[in-house]
């Protein structure tokens, strides 16, 4: 049997098992990472760049298939997906039977290159690695003379590891299994944007100014932004009134540094910074809210708690009887569980960290940003990304009201952080 006939296939990682079941037009589970170049993007060269790098990334070179008991990945031998000019709202649904069956798409508009990835493949870490290599290859093709010293190959710091790090770091629970019972959280609701639009408000700020603001409160940038978002919901949505339900901001934590993993597959855990605004005469100040959310985060982002989360998440998958349940029934059960938990969180704020490009390429890229599509019960989400001394916070929302975004950015500017705003022009102009 020749190697050519031997189709590669792979199981989904523990987190990815959820995404094919719950993904729909309204809840796409697609995230976008964009790079804004200094010059207009050339579609032909971008396609060529994609054609050249895709064969190296087996995690991206997959299509999704349904088995009797589980979904699984199968090697996709079709040509790379077609690079197209941006034609839909960010994070639009990726149809598995279109796009040459690939689970990601590459689009461009003006000077921006967008990589949109169905979360089943990989998380933001994997997405960034892929986009960086795409940008490198594109720049090598676009400016062959400037990059004549650069070889047409993937960077040496890239790992093609595709282990399921959840399974690898899973430890059988000792004693009684820890249960994660979440209570109902504040749900941000309101009039939706017409025509199924997704609104984007992007704020760009200098990291040095942001760091100075964080220093005042003795917190990290991440903690500060989570606190600012929670405060913005308290002020902009609850109008500084008390609530029995907490404002729960989900924060995905990249688990790789905690478990020495370099996997290209998903490897993150969700923690939630919670703040219960009590009914009281005096309104909460930003400093108070920040202190509460920072404490909540610190308590959860510990190795022990992350171990527990992995154990909790993986133990169901490890149950042999559950594994024998046909996929169609599993899907119904997973959907039910997900529906039941949809109101347990208010929003999500993710920080994919600082993107660093190699020196010869840096001057051709103006900025990086990321964006999350909506999910059930969360009508507004925030994504953070930094590059070259600048940090961008991208709010994606399906709601007309922008009070939360307003309060968020006003909190930052009040702390001396200069902010530059850009939107995708879906918000009403007077």
């Amino acid at each position, binding site marked *: 049997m020749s190697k050519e006939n031997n189709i590669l296939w792979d199981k989904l990682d523990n987190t990815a098992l959820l995404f094919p079941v719950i993904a729909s037009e309204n809840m796409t589970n697609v995230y976008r990472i964009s790079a804004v170049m200094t010059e207009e993007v050339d579609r032909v060269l971008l396609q060529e760049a994609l054609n050249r790098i895709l064969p190296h990334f087996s995690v991206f070179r997959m299509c999704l298939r349904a*088995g*009797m008991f589980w979904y699984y990945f199968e090697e996709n031998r079709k040509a790379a997906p077609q690079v197209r000019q*941006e034609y839909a709202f960010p994070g639009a649904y990726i149809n598995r039977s279109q796009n040459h069956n690939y689970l990601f798409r590459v689009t461009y508009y003006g000077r921006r290159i967008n990589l949109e990835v169905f979360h089943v493949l990989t998380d933001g870490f994997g997405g960034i690695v892929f986009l960086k290599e795409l940008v490198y290859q594109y720049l090598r093709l676009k400016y062959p003379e400037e990059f004549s010293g650069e070889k047409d190959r993937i960077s040496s710091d890239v790992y093609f590891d595709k282990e399921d790090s959840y399974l690898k770091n899973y430890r059988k629970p000792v004693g009684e299994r820890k249960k994660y019972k979440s209570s109902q959280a504040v749900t941000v609701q309101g009039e939706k944007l017409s025509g199924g639009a997704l609104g984007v408000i992007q*704020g760009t700020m200098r990291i040095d100014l942001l760091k100075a603001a964080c220093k005042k409160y003795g917190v990290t940038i991440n903690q500060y932004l989570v606190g600012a978002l929670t405060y913005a919901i308290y002020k902009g949505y609850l109008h500084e009134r008390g609530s029995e339900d907490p404002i729960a901001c989900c924060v995905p934590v990249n688990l790789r540094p905690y478990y020495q993993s370099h996997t290209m597959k998903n490897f993150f855990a969700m923690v939630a910074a919670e703040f219960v605004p009590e009914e009281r005469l005096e309104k909460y100040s930003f400093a108070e809210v920040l202190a509460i959310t920072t404490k909540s985060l610190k308590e959860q982002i510990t190795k022990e708690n992350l171990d527990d989360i992995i154990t909790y998440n993986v133990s169901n998958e490890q149950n042999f009887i559950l594994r024998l349940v046909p996929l169609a029934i599993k899907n119904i059960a997973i959907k039910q569980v997900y529906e039941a938990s949809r109101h347990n969180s208010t929003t999500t704020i993710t920080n994919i960290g600082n993107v660093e490009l190699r020196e010869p390429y840096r001057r051709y890229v103006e900025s990086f940003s990321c964006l999350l599509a909506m999910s059930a019960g969360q009508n507004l989400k925030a994504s953070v990304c930094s590059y070259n001394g*600048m940090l961008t916070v991208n709010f994606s929302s399906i709601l007309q009201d922008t009070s939360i975004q307003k309060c968020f950015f006003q909190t930052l500017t009040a702390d001396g952080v200069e902010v530059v705003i*850009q939107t995708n*022009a879906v918000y009403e*102009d007077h």
Partner: protein
Amino acid sequence: MNYCSNCKVTIYDERNSCPLCHKMLEEVGDERAAAVAEQYGLGMRYPNVRGRERRIRFVMHLMLFCFVLVGIVAVTINWIFTPTVYWSLIVCVALAYTYLFIVYWIRHDAGAAFKVGMQIFFTMALLYGIDHFTGAHGWAVEWAIPGLILLGDGMVFFFMMLNRQNWYSYLALLLLMGLCSAVIFGLYLTQHIRNLILPVACILVTGIYLAATLVFGDRQFTRELKRRFHV
């Protein structure tokens, strides 16, 4: 480039009011704009994609309207000319079925094999239902459903030839046809079906087809089963 004195933010977009607080914006001078661009970059606007989304929605709504219209016309003609026979009910069910499947084919992202499998399965159910509704003469299981199985075999062959590189991905559909053929043949053996030709044709065609894929498919056949049935 504009500035909102209420939010104290600079705004790249060409617009009159602040997207955050809706206050009228102040225009930023050239010098300040240049300084912002120098520090924060030029930004990059987004395309207007609303037109495309609207067109898709309009086409879907137009299609639904046409189906509803045909349904109303059928019911009206039925009511005026043949009020004693409710044939329009079958028309309405068939219209609903067709509409749902068009939407399913457009919207659902399963592969062609799965969609064909689902369509064959539900068409069998629909044919059986119509037969039952029109007096249970048995034509559905005698002729229509076996015919559909043979059609399914033909479709599997067509798909496998069309997509030879991934022929194995239609194996599950072929197995479904095998299962349906076995049921039809079982109905003949238990004398629920009197017609011999079609059940035998189903079991023979599907059986030979399965045997051929097993022999010529070599290890791809077993590998596909291993993938599909991994626990």
